[in-house]
């Protein structure tokens, strides 16, 4: 980054992650990046472009199409004393590595009686909105959030994209970072100062007194748009960016709900057996008597995501569907 601290540089979410990778590779010789096409090709979303030239093939490692093998190798290398960052092109392909993530990364520390912590970082793209149809558009972070032993984060802003990687690398546990595909081109400013992101706490992105919109990832922007559209109706929506999906920041969630007495959870995952269901259950368990209305949810339609734009749009949560769920809550 060339900008001075006074004049934050305009940059993108993609570039913010690249800067974070570069910082990490410079700061710690144990860090390396591996994944499909991360080197020569520059990453399927161009995140690692230029890193091969700077850090060489030992540290920017192209892998064959072998998700189970290279994720497993990342776990092994982490146990062996390195700090691997493994990139999986999208979470859809991470299912080929599910065995390694769920049966190895998540269990080894506990099962070995604490002898085998697994400090691996696994990054992957998630989410829909680019008309890529059902095998390339799903959001599986909620599934992963079901698994004890791994940590799940979803940076929604440039600062978090830049800051969470370092925090993940400092963490002795396996951390999965979900980057929403709709965010890579998002522009914004980033100051020269190393952003302090932690990977456990939610962050309030808009304060309001009437309803709490609980969300993460790219849905954050839909919620902010919904909140803006509700303000003229006299409904002040608060928007809480969860950021960490495991562990969930219960304190922040409950504080928002107690303040506003109403909550709508907005999640690109499906509704059944989901992260949104979990959050709703926790609110019910802990804030039941603080609520003025049942908890609402806006999630993806329970169907595989289709290719044509009108159907994809209809399947996904949108600012308008969020706003109308809130309006319904207020009888407006």
């Amino acid at each position, binding site marked *: 980054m060339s900008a001075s601290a006074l004049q934050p540089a305009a940059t993108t979410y993609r570039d913010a992650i690249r800067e974070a990778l570069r910082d990490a590779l410079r700061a710690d010789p144990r860090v390396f990046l591996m994944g499909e096409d991360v080197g020569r090709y*520059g990453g399927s979303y161009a995140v690692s472009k230029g890193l091969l030239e700077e850090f060489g093939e030992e540290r920017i490692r192209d892998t*064959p199409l072998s998700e189970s093998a290279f994720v497993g190798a990342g776990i092994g290398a982490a146990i062996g004393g390195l700090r691997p960052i493994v990139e999986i092109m999208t979470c859809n392909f991470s299912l*080929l590595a599910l065995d390694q993530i769920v049966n190895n990364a998540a269990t080894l520390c506990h099962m070995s009686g604490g002898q085998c912590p697994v400090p691996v970082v696994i990054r992957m793209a998630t989410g829909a909105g680019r008309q890529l149809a059902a095998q390339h558009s799903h959001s599986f972070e909620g599934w992963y959030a079901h698994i004890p032993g791994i940590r799940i984060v979803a940076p929604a802003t440039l600062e978090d994209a830049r800051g969470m990687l370092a925090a993940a690398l400092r963490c002795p546990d396996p951390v999965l970072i979900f980057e929403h595909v709709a965010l890579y081109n998002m522009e914004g400013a980033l100051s020269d100062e190393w952003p302090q992101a932690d990977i456990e706490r939610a962050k309030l992105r808009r304060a309001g007194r009437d309803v709490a919109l609980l969300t993460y990832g790219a849905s954050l922007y839909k919620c902010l748009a919904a909140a803006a559209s509700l303000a003229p109706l006299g409904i002040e929506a608060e928007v809480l960016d969860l950021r960490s999906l495991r562990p969930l920041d219960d304190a922040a969630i409950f504080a928002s709900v107690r303040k506003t007495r109403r909550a709508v959870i907005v999640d690109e995952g499906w509704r059944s057996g989901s992260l949104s269901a979990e959050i709703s259950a926790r609110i019910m368990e802990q804030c039941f008597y603080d609520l003025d209305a049942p908890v609402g949810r806006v999630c993806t339609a329970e169907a595989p995501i289709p290719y044509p734009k009108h159907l994809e749009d209809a399947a996904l949560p949108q600012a308008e569907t969020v706003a109308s769920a809130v309006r319904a809550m207020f009888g407006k």
Partner: protein
Amino acid sequence: MSAAPAEIGRERVLERLKAMLRIRRFEDRCAELYGKGFIRGYLHLYNGEEAVGVGVMQALEPDDAVVSTYREHGHALARGVPMNALMAELFGKLAGCSRGRGGSMHIFDVSRRFYGGNAIVGVGIPLAVGLALAQKLRGTRSLAACFFGEGAVAEGEFNESLNLAALWKLPVLFMCENNLYAMGTALDRSESQTDIHLKAAGYRIPSFAVDGMDVLAVEDAARGAAARIRAGGGPEFLELKTYRFRAHSMFDSQLYRTKEEVESWRRRGPLIGFTQKFKERGLMSEDDYLRLEREADQEVDAAVAFAQAADWEPVDQLMRFVYAERGAA
């Protein structure tokens, strides 16, 4: 080898040329339509690989199952999926062969036993093994023809499937379209054994390397393998050596290969070599070529018009077919 090479006459030459030209012109039009926004999402074109799809399909019967990848327009056309339904699918229209829900990567036409259009690398290979298992247990002579790229051979699913098919002597024709690059990764940067057919041999599957730029060589190899598979010989494997002329998907800067390399492969492309050879033998003329090209263009024009005029699936149908409709089958 069983099944002797079919005789080469003018009729066969023109048929193969026509089949390859239909694919080439279709794909070129798709690239244009993508630029204009009519086709969205990912679009993986088959230019350069036409001889493989066309050659292989000659050896298949209507009852055989075909499993393909996201680079499957050519396979679908050669299999007989109507161009109108294919183009409408790429437009995302209801008249598309998958109701427009799949798009370019998910062409399904079960009436022609065309089972996708699978966009997770390697995910179709076990599917083909299962289709073959069903065919064997049901006592048919049909086989399952399975296409995948050389990138897929690094996946566990490839290796697990080959072993299973060989162990159970299942009627699968495995076909690796080796176009040398998996996105930006060259074969020798992803495989310790770059002679892909030797991997299949490691599972004791009869396997052959074939010039995938020569439609007749592909056809002969596929006919031979299919005949032996139908006779109960178990799976066979063809490594079809080819090259993709265009980017992996619509956009990539192709930093992973040189322009000269692409040019040299274009010079020995499936249409050029074929045309030259059979013109020299007097089995076709330049006029034949131009006529077939024109006819292909007309067919593509009609398909585009059809797709443009077709309807969108109404939004209220979104939840249909998440589960099979009762009483529909």
